[in-house]
Every structure is written in structure tokens, then in C-alpha cells.
């Protein structure tokens, strides 16, 4: 008598486990693809500065991009009061869009890098 194929036996008797295994493998493929894309993107942009985000503080930006915090704060008009304030908060206090403030910071960092 021919022995039934293993996959057939398992599908016949353990359908839920087989479906779960299939889902886990699909997820694994999904994450592999995404990981590869993100990795390649990262390697391509390694030398470029990642975006400055509105939730970052002046201190964070200064630390991450090795620029004296005081310089950045002076530029933003708040040399005494920079600690812990996010860029969003500073922009709000100065009544201007945070994107404008970030663009200014980017310009300064660009200059420092050169």
C-alpha cells in the first residue's frame, strides 16, 4: 500500500495548525521583503541626514548632529530656554509652522557640515 504524502496527512488531520503555519510563513516573507527594502533605503541614505522630526528637542538635534545646543537655540531665538522644549512647542510659541523652523535648522546643519 502506498503511504499517503505527509502534507496530505497533516492537512487532513491538523488543518488549523497547517493554516497557522501558512500564515506565519506569509508573515515571515512579508517582513523579509520589508526588511530588505528598509535596509537598502538606509544604506542608500546613510550619508544623508534623516529628517528632523517635530517631537525632537533642540538638545536632541544638537546631540544627534554634533552641533552645540546653544548655537541652535540662539538661532531659534531662545538661548536661555531650550531644555526639553520640542521643536513643535517652539514653533507654536513663535506662531509659525514647525516645517519652517525645521527648514531653518536643516540649513544651519548643512552649513556646519560644510
Amino acid at each position, binding site marked *: *500500500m502506498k*503511504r499517503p504524502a*505527509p502534507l496530505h*496527512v*497533516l492537512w487532513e*488531520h*491538523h488543518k488549523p*495548525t*497547517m493554516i*497557522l*503555519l501558512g500564515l*506565519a*510563513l506569509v*508573515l*515571515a516573507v*512579508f*517582513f*523579509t521583503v*520589508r*526588511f530588505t527594502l*528598509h*535596509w537598502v*533605503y*538606509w544604506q542608500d*541614505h*546613510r550619508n544623508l*541626514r*534623516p*529628517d528632523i*522630526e*517635530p*517631537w*525632537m*528637542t533642540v*538638545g*536632541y538635534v*544638537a*546631540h*544627534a*548632529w554634533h552641533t552645540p*545646543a546653544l548655537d541652535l537655540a540662539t538661532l531659534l531665538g531662545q538661548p536661555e530656554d531650550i*531644555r*526639553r*522644549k*520640542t521643536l*513643535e*512647542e517652539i514653533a507654536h510659541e513663535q506662531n509659525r509652522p514647525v516645517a519652517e523652523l525645521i527648514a531653518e535648522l536643516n540649513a544651519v546643519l548643512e552649513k556646519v557640515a560644510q
Partner: protein
Amino acid sequence: MTDQLLALLPDYGAPLLGLITLLSCLALPVPASLFMMAAGGFAAAGDLPLGFTILAALTGAVIGDQIGYALGRSGAGWLQRIESRGGKQAMALSRATSLTRERGNIAVFLSRWLLSPLGPYVNFVAGAARLRWPTFTIASATGEIAWVTIYVGIGAGAADQFGYLWPVISDMLGLLAALTVALLLALRLRHMLQLHRKLGHKKRR
């Protein structure tokens, strides 16, 4: 949503981080690892105290694990009743729970940091399978120390790469978790196949 929460970090710092790690241990969808990286960056910049930040993240995570374990434990009686009922499924269940009691500490430790997406569920299972409390607590605390140190460390050391690093890390964690689940299921299926073959031989004889 994540960005707004991140913006609260410099102001609410350690307590907020502790709350987030606590919730993440209970399977709530909060990106705790991301927050620890950001907190590491703030700490390195001098906007948050480093020691206090680590301690808060650790405390939140350990308390979250304990709550998850206790929730699982409250369902332990129900599992025991099914086990005592007898039959094929009850036997499989009791094998699974006794395996968890013997080796669960490794699963708890690894699912704190390397396989972190599985962490909350491992807490529930550990409680439900009656893994001994001291064993669970030691594995949970050591694993959480690894988790917190790794992410706060990455955040502090690579603050400039934050925007690129996080997607890569989260994909890798997802991949590792999916592969682990697939491996466990495949091992289980292999075991079932062997049982089928044994039974088949017996029947034929």
C-alpha cells in the same frame, strides 16, 4: 499618534516611559521599543536623566509582566480542569503545560528582547501553565534588563540614525517572531506526523 506621544516624552519623561513599557507587556499596541530609543536620545542630549529613565522603563516592564502573568494564572484552574478531563486533547494540553513549567524560563527570557512581539502572550501562557513565580520573575527581570539596555543604548548612541534604524529593527523583530512561530508549528506538525505513522504501522500489523 506616535509623534504626539513622542513629543510628550521630554516633559513627562520617565513616568510616561514606564507607563508605555507596562502597557506594551499587556499586548497593547504601543511601540515601547521606539519610545525607549527616543528616550535614550533625549537622555544622551541631557534632556532626561539617564539612570532614572532606564529604571522607569524597567519598572514599568517588570510590573507589566507580573500583571500579564497574574492574568494568565487566573485562567490556570480552567486549564487544569480540562487536563483532568482525560482524553487525547487533555493529554496534549498537560504535556504542553508541563513543558512550559520545565523550560518556560527560556521562552520568557528570549521573548523579552529578541522575540519581543511574542512577549505579552508568553506572559499569559506562563501564568496559565503555572510556571513557578520565582522562575518567571527572574527570567522576566533579566530579559527586561536586556531589552531596556539595548534600546536605550541604541537610542543614545545612534540618535542621528533614528529615522532609518527604527523601520529596520521593527521589521527584523517581526521576522524573527514569525519565523519562531513557524518553527514551533512545524516541529509540532512533525511530531503529529510521527504519531500518525506509528499508529498506521500498528493498524497494519
